[in-house]
């Protein structure tokens, strides 16, 4: 009797969290899956009725030419963001392994871009990449790298690249921090032994750093993927998905379908596709992170 009571008391500490998970994650996700198979429009909000339409939303989304655009853009955006973020983050992490004055302070300052609201990052890049008055064009013109201002955010050819640049900037700190803590975990003695054997810095990097950093790299890359696929704020602030849908990703398209076209069923369908993609990477992530939570 006392033991049962004891167990109930212990579970009571978890109860609010469990109720919360069910109410604010399980229920909305299930709700979204259900919305995906109904014709959910503005009238549904008033009448509370949304007719079941089977896979009609998915078929209509699949027939839409924007699906290909959104898919390709999401892929380019994700890979184009993650590879440079990871490489630059790793280079910086290796660099900051050295001991020098102010190391800690400078490293902390580098976190700032990650902690800022993405809306702020986007706003700043709007200004920096402004075609007429932006500092990037002015400097490039001065240096004669370009002969006329580049329409960074207003031409379909440049917009996606510009959005990616801003997103790389915002994501470097995350990779730096994760990879830095990974590097800290590699025993110094390995490097000392390698140095005694005459291995140069570059060989040490390839044969010690990279292999031993694999588990942490996997976590950084997987979390990076999962976070980047759903990036919304920075694209909306910089280009609103335009010009001519050239920066439309699955996340922004889902928004436009639901909240601008008011076809919540179709928006839900695109959102569910996004969940499926996320789940695939989540499985990889949970496998690599499992050890950390034991």
């Amino acid at each position, binding site marked *: 009797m006392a033991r049962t009571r004891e167990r109930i*008391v*212990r579970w009571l*500490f*978890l109860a*609010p*969290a469990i109720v919360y*998970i069910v109410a*604010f*994650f399980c229920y*909305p*996700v299930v709700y*979204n899956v259900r*919305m995906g198979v109904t014709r959910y429009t503005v009238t549904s*909000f008033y009448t*509370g009725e949304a007719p079941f339409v089977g896979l009609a939303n998915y078929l209509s989304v699949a027939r839409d030419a924007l699906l290909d655009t959104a898919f390709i853009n999401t892929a380019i955006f994700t890979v184009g963001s993650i590879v440079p973020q990871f490489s630059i983050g790793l280079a910086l992490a290796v*660099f900051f392994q050295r001991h*020098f004055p*102010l*190391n800690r302070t*400078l490293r*902390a*300052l*580098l*976190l700032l*871009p990650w*902690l*800022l*609201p*993405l*809306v*702020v*990052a986007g*706003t*700043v890049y*709007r*200004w*920096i990449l402004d075609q007429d*008055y932006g500092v990037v064009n*002015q400097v490039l013109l001065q240096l004669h790298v370009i002969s006329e201002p580049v329409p960074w955010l207003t031409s379909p050819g440049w917009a996606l690249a510009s959005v990616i640049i801003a997103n790389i900037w915002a994501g470097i700190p995350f990779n730096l*921090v*994760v990879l830095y803590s990974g590097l800290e975990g590699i025993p110094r003695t390995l490097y000392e032994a390698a140095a005694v054997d005459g291995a140069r810095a570059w060989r040490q990097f390839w044969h010690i750093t990279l292999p031993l950093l694999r588990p*942490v790299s996997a976590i950084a890359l997987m*979390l990076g993927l999962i976070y980047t*696929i*759903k990036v919304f*704020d920075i694209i909306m*602030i910089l280009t609103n998905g335009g010009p001519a849908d050239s920066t439309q990703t699955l*996340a922004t398209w*889902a*928004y436009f379908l639901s*909240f601008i076209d008011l076809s919540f069923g179709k*928006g*839900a369908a695109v*959102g569910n596709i*996004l*969940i499926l993609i*996320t789940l695939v990477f989540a499985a990889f*992530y*949970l496998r690599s992170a499992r050890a950390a*939570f034991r």
Partner: protein
Amino acid sequence: MTLIAVLIVAFLLFPLYWMVNASLQAGSALLRTPPAWLPMESTLQGYRDALATQGSHLLTSLIVSLGTVALTLAVAAPAAYALAQLRLSGSLTIIFALLLAQMVPNIVMANSLYSIFNRLGLLDSYPGLILADSTTAVPFAILVLRAFMLSIPSELGEAARVDGAGHWRTFIRVIVPVSRNGLIAAGLFAFLFAWSDFLFALTMTTSDEIQPVTLSIYQFLGSHTSNWNSVMATAVFASIPAAILLAVAQRYVSAGLTGGAVKD
């Protein structure tokens, strides 16, 4: 070495310098070429405009963020204690559920919460925004706090229990005070998440009544992009919580980044 590092940091933080630089100049001065590298003719006009037009939105953001902190800590602290110290059999399942919950794209949450909140009358309300924002903060806070509470020796709680304190008293009298730093860190992050939120601000409000600053910047950018100095001044205001977090809770940031998946 330090010089190279300073140059790297200066290069990477240049956009932020450029934001401050623009916020301190007159609107007309920003439309000159070449640009002023230093705000020599500085003016606080941009900040005055920002406060006059964006002040109420900053206040809205503050209310929503504080509400999110309160809700998040109320749910997360007991849960983290249970997961870290009470050795419950389902702990690992719940941790995995939290990791998965963190990954659900916000746009999916917005899509279904909009409809759910519409029925509950929570659109265009502070509680609605607080609840929506808390969905990013709660799983994260539980994981970070759990990682923090794992380092509390279990003897501490057991000693209190031997003295006759129940679980609840032990939690309030022993665990909460000992975890003060962790609670502050988790709270600061919850604040930052809510403060930075844009998607829920965009979707959970349909009128101008309750409009966080992120949303008002977005609408500002859409309507008149020529007032760059006041836009940048608003952006500076919106950056303040991040700067504070960095100054006071820097060492928790790395643990927080991955929700405790990578130990610092």
